């Protein structure tokens, strides 16, 4: 990127199942005010706005139009990004592009999803082209069920490992004041008692539908240091949308096709001289819609060798106290307001770099972090964030 961009403000709402006390614009406004408070800026300082959300789920076309007043964007320039699961990352990318292109010094990325307005599974199933896929797609759950089956078969991971992933996420979520699902789980058996949704995905293996918003304030190098004592620098990012797999959606059971994660890593890691992720990067906030996918993503992002993802979980390498913490915030399986989730990953990684993550702060000192996003069927976005 030409000009350097930093994250100087982070704000989010308390993610939850239902928010009846606010309408959609007001909910988003809460996160805006939180981000402004964190950046210690006034709304007048924000020069441009980028909105990010998935429209089918709220059932309102162009929902950003109804919230201009509540987010303070009256009379200011902006644009909307909607791109499936990776929406938030692309929106942050746009915010960075506008700054490094020299158009603005301070932009705000606003992302949200108010899931109590609709039904996410229904929304995702509506992405199935009705002329040839009607009745074949049961939302994201069935697609991740197929991914889980492939993973179990190839790597030897067992249901106990998926349960361990949920336990790790729950420990983080219980320490994160903003997370949605704080289950207080104590043992693998508790997780294994939850019912199946689409076999082998259990209720506790999957992400919730949360109402929440997350807002970032981005600034140019010129202004960043004046605004915040600890700006978090966006060193690089990559967005890859590959064509869908022939069989399966989120996984390639045939073993012949290209994963967008691999393409993204090849480009991003190469550009930044990363040859050993676990040594050169300190933490990751990855977008894992299911416990099984988390283990698979460890392999796709080269945190470990193929078929060894479940071993990292077993050994506790990715715990908050571990050598390579992943998803200290609880991750997507604890809070998932879809349009905001990728931005939450970037926000949480930024808080970890700043040392401001409170009780869910990683034990290690975090100087460099990766934040990723996943979209259907074969999309990945990756952000590389650095302290200096």
């Amino acid at each position, binding site marked *: 990127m030409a000009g350097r961009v930093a994250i100087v403000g982070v704000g989010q709402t308390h993610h939850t199942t239902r928010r009846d006390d606010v*309408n959609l*614009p*007001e909910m988003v406004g809460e996160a805006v005010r939180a981000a402004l408070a964190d950046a210690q800026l006034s*709304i007048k300082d924000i020069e441009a706005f980028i909105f990010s959300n998935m429209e089918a789920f709220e059932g309102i076309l162009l929902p950003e139009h109804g919230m201009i007043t*509540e987010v*303070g964007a009256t009379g200011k320039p902006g644009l909307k990004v909607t791109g499936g699961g990776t929406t938030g990352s692309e929106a942050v990318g746009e915010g960075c592009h506008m700054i490094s292109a020299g158009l603005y010094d301070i932009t705000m990325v606003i992302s949200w999803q*108010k899931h109590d*307005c609709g*039904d996410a599974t229904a929304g995702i199933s509506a992405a199935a082209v009705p002329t040839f896929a009607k009745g074949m797609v049961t939302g994201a759950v069935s697609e991740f069920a197929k991914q889980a089956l492939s993973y179990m078969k190839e790597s030897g991971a067992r249901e106990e490992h998926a349960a361990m992933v949920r336990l790790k996420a729950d420990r983080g979520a219980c320490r994160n004041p903003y997370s949605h699902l704080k289950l207080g789980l104590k043992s693998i058996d508790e997780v294994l008692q939850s019912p199946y949704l689409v076999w082998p995905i259990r209720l506790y293996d999957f992400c919730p539908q949360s109402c929440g918003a997350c807002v970032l304030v981005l600034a140019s190098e010129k202004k960043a240091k004046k605004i915040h004592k600890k700006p978090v620098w966006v060193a690089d990012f990559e967005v890859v949308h590959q064509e869908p797999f022939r069989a399966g959606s989120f996984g390639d059971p045939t073993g012949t096709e290209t994963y967008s994660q691999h393409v993204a890593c090849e480009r991003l890691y190469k550009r930044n001289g990363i040859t050993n992720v676990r040594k050169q990067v300190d933490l990751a906030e990855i977008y894992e819609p299911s416990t099984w996918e988390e283990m698979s993503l460890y392999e796709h992002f080269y945190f470990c060798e193929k078929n060894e993802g479940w071993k990292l979980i077993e050994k506790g390498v990715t715990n908050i106290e571990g050598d390579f913490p992943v998803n200290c915030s609880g991750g997507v399986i604890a809070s998932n307001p879809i349009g905001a989730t990728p931005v939450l990953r970037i926000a949480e990684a930024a808080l970890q770099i700043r040392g401001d993550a409170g009780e869910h702060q990683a034990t290690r000192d975090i100087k460099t972090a990766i934040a990723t996003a996943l979209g259907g069927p074969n999309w990945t976005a990756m952000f590389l964030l650095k302290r200096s």
Partner: protein
Amino acid sequence: MAKVTEKLEGMDVWVYHGKIHIPNTYSAGAVGSRFLIELRDNKRIMGTRCPACSLVYVPARSVCRDCFGMLSEWIEVGRKGTLLTYAVAYQGNPVQPLEPPVAYGIVQLDGADTGFVHMLGEVAPEQLKVGMKVKAVFKIKKERQASILDIKYFKPVG
């Protein structure tokens, strides 16, 4: 059984007649709820006022468009106002509940600084004029449901 797909004449192209049915529920929020509950329980139309700019927003909302401040004062506005503009729809739509012709316009109530859209009734389309004075007509109590439609329509006065 109704035909779900049909072939177009003269070419191998099919059209699938389907639907997308996702259940939606919108929260009015605390402020919106209070506005709607006042319509239902008290036949009162309320607005919120910005303490800094003195603008009164109807229907009541929570943030000021100009200064981004919170609108903290509740004010009752009258049931009478001015018709800022109007339109008459002659074509129906499967999603619309009313039969055409339907007249609706933007009404700015006395005491408010904003206008809002509502139906116009007890008036022939030709008699509508920009700037005419109108008055809210409410539904009877048992029909009111804390909805903007608790106001049945606006009719001309004078």
